[in-house]
Structure formats: structure tokens, C-alpha cells
């Protein structure tokens, strides 16, 4: 099946050709000397490569047509090569002549994860300073956040927002035409101030820099010049990560906290889209990693171009068609600044994560069979995000996982291999139950301290991750409070279930 694709055509089963001995000419312009090989043996010169790279970004955005003119888009930067290249493409795209210009309003966000990645405070300060310099140089408004601020997030982060922004009424084409009309009006009326409708883009240097994404609950004002959060906070965060037993769980936890922080920034600052810099290589690795993690049901959401699980804020991945190699070459040739910070590390060398294993596996395979990554990617592209059938109540929203906000896929609890471990754990720790009088108001909570309370709220893979994390009381407050809220609602609902009138009930409830 995959043998029939054209990539395998030229050289048999896709192995590398023996390397050439003399310098080659660019396959596109035939003049310049080739500088980089992309795809299977296509050698491009620098100029043609640049054109190819820039064009691809616009093509991806144009093909998908989800970013409307004037929309506020938050770029999530990690300092790494892919997100830095993405930032450069946005800058390039915004600075073209009017007709071909990208038309949205960008903002930038950077999350400092140095604490869990083993950086000392001095190293964190240095990374932050370098990142801030890069962000300031762009002129876009930017926000710096620390992973510690995840402890200040509100529970609403885990709730899906109202779906106002993702499918607005005008079609894309109409929206673009409207926008151009407005620009022409503004230019005709306003005369000469801003030359070509740059009014929509705040070019003022970032006085909107904010470091307090969620309001710090600690109440201590940050001392001038001090960038890092309080040491106690950092310790809390480190404790949470150290309690996670496996590197896989740590990676998932890190991704989750980072996503929630970025989402919160977007929501509080009025952004309706978030751009993430996942490259094609990263997407292919993620696809297979997530399969191994038990997230097969959500692959399209996790790796597709647009991720609408949060409702009001959509996550888009415009870099998903660029191979990591192309990005690295682009950054090197055209001086894109990056700030590299260390990654999560296991305590002992032998222990690794599913993420790393999958990366090694795919990249190793790619070295021998250069169409591996693109094949995995293209297969993943065929997955669609059509929602699963409604569970029990037709017409109602499917229940969503507490942590990843995907539709719960754990209807048949008996099938889970977790069941025996659940029972053992509940027997081991008996939560104290205050004497309740049976009224739903004072029903005893099984206690956020017991893992069993969380499990029904999680999807299959989040349960697996959760099982490898520490005690629930080390979790950030927003997770616990939202979990309590949902458990309470579920319990209340169950208690008044018998009094509820169903729409299609013919007979009266027996106890009315």
C-alpha cells in the first residue's frame, strides 16, 4: 500500500542513493549551487530554499483558512528552532506588501520551565534575559510566564469555553473582503498617518509585557529586577514533578501544565487562536507516542492542524509540514535566533520515556528510509476530528476529561486493567467520612486525597499518567478544585436522579 507512493519510486525500497562526488546545481533554478537536500534528493540553493520555506507557511495558512483578518493570535514560543522559525515566518508574512500580507494581530508568550529542567536560578535568569531580548526585538506584545504560575491558575482553565470564536458567522472570504474594505476606508479617510493599514498591528514596543499571567495568590509583589517566582513556589513545583514515577508521566505533566498556562494567557489577554511550533517530525513522533500512551481516540485533535478542544481558543499548528531538518537549515542560513534550554531528564540514565524512545525509533528509521516521517505524517493527516457518538444522552455534550479536555472514552469501566489496582488502593487508604445526614448538601466527599475520586473524570490515557503521578494533594489547586466540583456535581446529579423528569417518560416517577 505505502509502496505505491511516488516517494519510493526512484531508488527501489526507499534506501538512500550513494552520495554524489561532485557539487550539484539547484534542481529548481538550475543555477545556484545547492546548499541543502530536502525531501528525497531535491537539492536547493539558498535562495530557492528560502522561497520554498516562506511559501509553505503562507500556503498552510491559506489552505486551512481558519485565521481571520484582524484576529488576535498568540504565538507560543519555546525558544527552540521550530517556534523561532515560526516567529520569523509571521514577521515576514506581516511585512509584505498589502495584497499578500498576513492579516492577523500577533502576540507572543514564553513559558519558563527551567525549574523542572534542571536549571539553576542563574541559568534561568540568563535564558529569560536572552528570550526577552528576542521578544522585544520583534515589537509585538509579549508575555513571560513561569511554570510555577500553574499553581495560580483558576479551575475555569479546565472547562471548555463558549464557542464564540471558532466558527464566526461570516465566511472566510467575506471576512477578508470586509477587512480590505475597511482598510481602504481608513486609508481614504485618515489620510497619511499609517501608510498601509498598519493600524491593526500594534507596533509599539512591548509596554504590554506582563509577567503576572494569573494573579499571584501569594500576594508578594515581585521585587523590581527579580524575575523568578518565590523559591517556595519552585519547590512546590519540583515536588510535584519528583513525585511522578516515570519520565513519561513527567513529560505528559509538563505538556499539560504548559498548555494550560498558555491557554490561560490567551483567554485573559483576548487571543482567540494559539500557534504552536510543532514540526512535521515532531507531529509524526507525537502521533506514534500518543498511540503508545493510549490516546488513539484523540490523535486527530493532538496532531491535526486545528485543535478545538478548549472551545473559545483554538490551537493551530502551522509548522506541521516542515521537517526538523528544513527548520534547522533555515535557522542557520538566515540567522533566526534561538535559545536552547535543557529538556526534562530522568534521574538515572537507563530510565527513559516513551517520547524519547519513539523519537529515537523514528529518527533512526528515517536515516535509513528517508520517507518514514512524511509517510507517518501523511497517514495521520487522514484522521479527522469528527466527534464520537454521544454517549448516554443524545444531544448532550459528551463528558470531557478533566486534564486533557478530550471526550471521555471510558464507558466500560470493567474493561480497564486498572480496576484491580483501584480496589487495592481503596482498601489501603480509608478516607475519613464525616457523618452525613443523607442530604445532598452535606454528602461526604470521598476526599480529593483519594485517587479513586479522580479516575472517573479522566480519559484512559490520563488515567494511566495519573496512576504514575504522586499523591493527589501535590497537584496544583486548580486541578483539585475542578475535580471536586465535577465529582460533587456528579454525585448531586445521582442523588436527585430519581426526581428528575425525563423528556420522554410516559409514567410519573414513582417517588414524586
Amino acid at each position, binding site marked *: 500500500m505505502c509502496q505505491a507512493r511516488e516517494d519510493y519510486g526512484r531508488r527501489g525500497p526507499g534506501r538512500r542513493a550513494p552520495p554524489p562526488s561532485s557539487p550539484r546545481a539547484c534542481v529548481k533554478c538550475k543555477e545556484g549551487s*545547492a546548499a*541543502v537536500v530536502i525531501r528525497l534528493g531535491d537539492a536547493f540553493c539558498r535562495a530557492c530554499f528560502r522561497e520554498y520555506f516562506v511559501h509553505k507557511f503562507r500556503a498552510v495558512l491559506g489552505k486551512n483558512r481558519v485565521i481571520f483578518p484582524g484576529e488576535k493570535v498568540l504565538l507560543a514560543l519555546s525558544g527552540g528552532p521550530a517556534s523561532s522559525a515560526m516567529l520569523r515566518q509571521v514577521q515576514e508574512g506581516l511585512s509584505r506588501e498589502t495584497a499578500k500580507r498576513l492579516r492577523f494581530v500577533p502576540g507572543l508568550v514564553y513559558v519558563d520551565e527551567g525549574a523542572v529542567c534542571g536549571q539553576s536560578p542563574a541559568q534561568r535568569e540568563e535564558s529569560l534575559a536572552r528570550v526577552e531580548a528576542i521578544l522585544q526585538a520583534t515589537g509585538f506584545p509579549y508575555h513571560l510566564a513561569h511554570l510555577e504560575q500553574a499553581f495560580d491558575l483558576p479551575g475555569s482553565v479546565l472547562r471548555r469555553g463558549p464557542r464564540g470564536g471558532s466558527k464566526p458567522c461570516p465566511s472566510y472570504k467575506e471576512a477578508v473582503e470586509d477587512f480590505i474594505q475597511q482598510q481602504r476606508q481608513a486609508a481614504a479617510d485618515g489620510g497619511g498617518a499609517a501608510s498601509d493599514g498598519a493600524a491593526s498591528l500594534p507596533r509599539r514596543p512591548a509596554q504590554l509585557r506582563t509577567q503576572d499571567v494569573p494573579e499571584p495568590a501569594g500576594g508578594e509583589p515581585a521585587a523590581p529586577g527579580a524575575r523568578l517566582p518565590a523559591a517556595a513556589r519552585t519547590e512546590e513545583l519540583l515536588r510535584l514533578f519528583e513525585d511522578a514515577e516515570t519520565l513519561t508521566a513527567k513529560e505528559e505533566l509538563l505538556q499539560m501544565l504548559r498548555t494550560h498556562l498558555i491557554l490561560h494567557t490567551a483567554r485573559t489577554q483576548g487571543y482567540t487562536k494559539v500557534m504552536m511550533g510543532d514540526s512535521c517530525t515532531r507531529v509524526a513522533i507525537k502521533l506514534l507516542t500518543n498511540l503508545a500512551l493510549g490516546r488513539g481516540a484523540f490523535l486527530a485533535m493532538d496532531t491535526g492542524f486545528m485543535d478545538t478542544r478548549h472551545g473559545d481558543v483554538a490551537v493551530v499548528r502551522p509548522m506541521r509540514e516542515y521537517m526538523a531538518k528544513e527548520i534547522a537549515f533555515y535557522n*542557520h542560513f538566515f540567522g533566526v535566533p534561538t535559545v536552547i534550554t535543557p529538556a526534562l531528564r530522568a534521574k538515572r540514565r537507563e530510565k527513559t520515556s516513551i517520547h524519547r524512545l519513539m523519537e529515537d525509533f523514528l529518527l533512526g528509521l528515517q536515516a535509513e528510509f528517508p520517507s518514514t516521517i512524511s509517510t507517518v505524517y501523511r497517514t495521520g493527516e487522514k484522521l479527522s476530528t469528527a466527534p464520537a457518538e454521544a454517549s448516554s444522552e443524545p444531544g448532550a455534550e459528551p463528558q470531557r476529561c478533566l486534564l486533557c479536555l478530550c471526550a471521555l472514552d471510558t464507558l466500560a469501566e470493567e474493561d480497564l486493567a486498572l480496576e484491580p489496582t483501584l480496589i487495592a488502593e481503596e482498601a489501603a487508604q480509608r478516607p475519613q467520612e464525616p457523618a452525613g445526614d443523607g442530604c445532598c448538601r452535606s454528602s461526604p466527599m470521598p476526599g480529593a486525597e483519594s485517587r479513586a475520586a479522580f479516575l472517573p473524570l479522566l480519559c484512559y490515557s490520563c488515567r494511566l499518567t495519573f496512576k504514575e503521578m504522586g499523591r493527589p494533594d501535590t497537584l496544583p489547586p486548580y486541578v483539585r478544585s475542578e475535580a471536586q466540583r465535577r465529582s460533587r456535581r456528579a454525585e448531586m446529579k445521582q442523588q436527585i436522579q430519581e426526581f428528575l423528569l425525563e423528556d420522554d417518560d410516559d409514567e410519573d416517577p414513582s417517588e414524586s
Partner: protein
Amino acid sequence: MGEERPGRGFVMVTGRWLRMGVERRSSRVSDLSKLELSHGDIRNLLKWIKQNLLKERPELFIQGDSVRPGILVLINDADWELMGELDYKLQDQDNVLFISTLHGG
């Protein structure tokens, strides 16, 4: 420096470790080191690097004969695939750059 002698040459090696996860190594290898090689091809260069520059965990950089998958090699700012990869014969004043694409983005 830079004399023309058959079979010998000076090569400038600049290794930039992007996110190797081992900070100590990155500072060492990013030092410019001018080295002399009698048989100048990339294969030998890698062997030399493994013996002399990589004090710990060589498997993060080298796998077998070649570099670990995910690490790009640029010779004079061009993809090494265009130059013959491991078989490329190093010449005087060549610049070899290693860029890691692992764990990044």
C-alpha cells in the same frame, strides 16, 4: 597554518550542541579547535572527535560509524549529503558544523 602539504590539512571544527541535555559537553565542544588530520575524511574526523572531545556519553553524538540520527552535519554551510557524507575528504580551512534537531521545537 594552512600550508599546502599533500595528505595533511587544518580543519576548523565548530560543534554547537543544541539541547543535548548535557550542558557540560556543549561548552567544551563549542570551543574552536584547529586540528590536524592525516587522513582527512569525515569518518576519521568523527573517530577523532569521539576519542578526544567526547569525554562522556559518546552515544549522544555518535552512533556506529556516523552521527546519531537527528544530528545534521554541514560542511562549509552546505548539507553533507551533497558532499558525500562520511566519505567527504576534508580540505584546508573547511568548516564543519553539527546541529542537533533532537528534543527541540
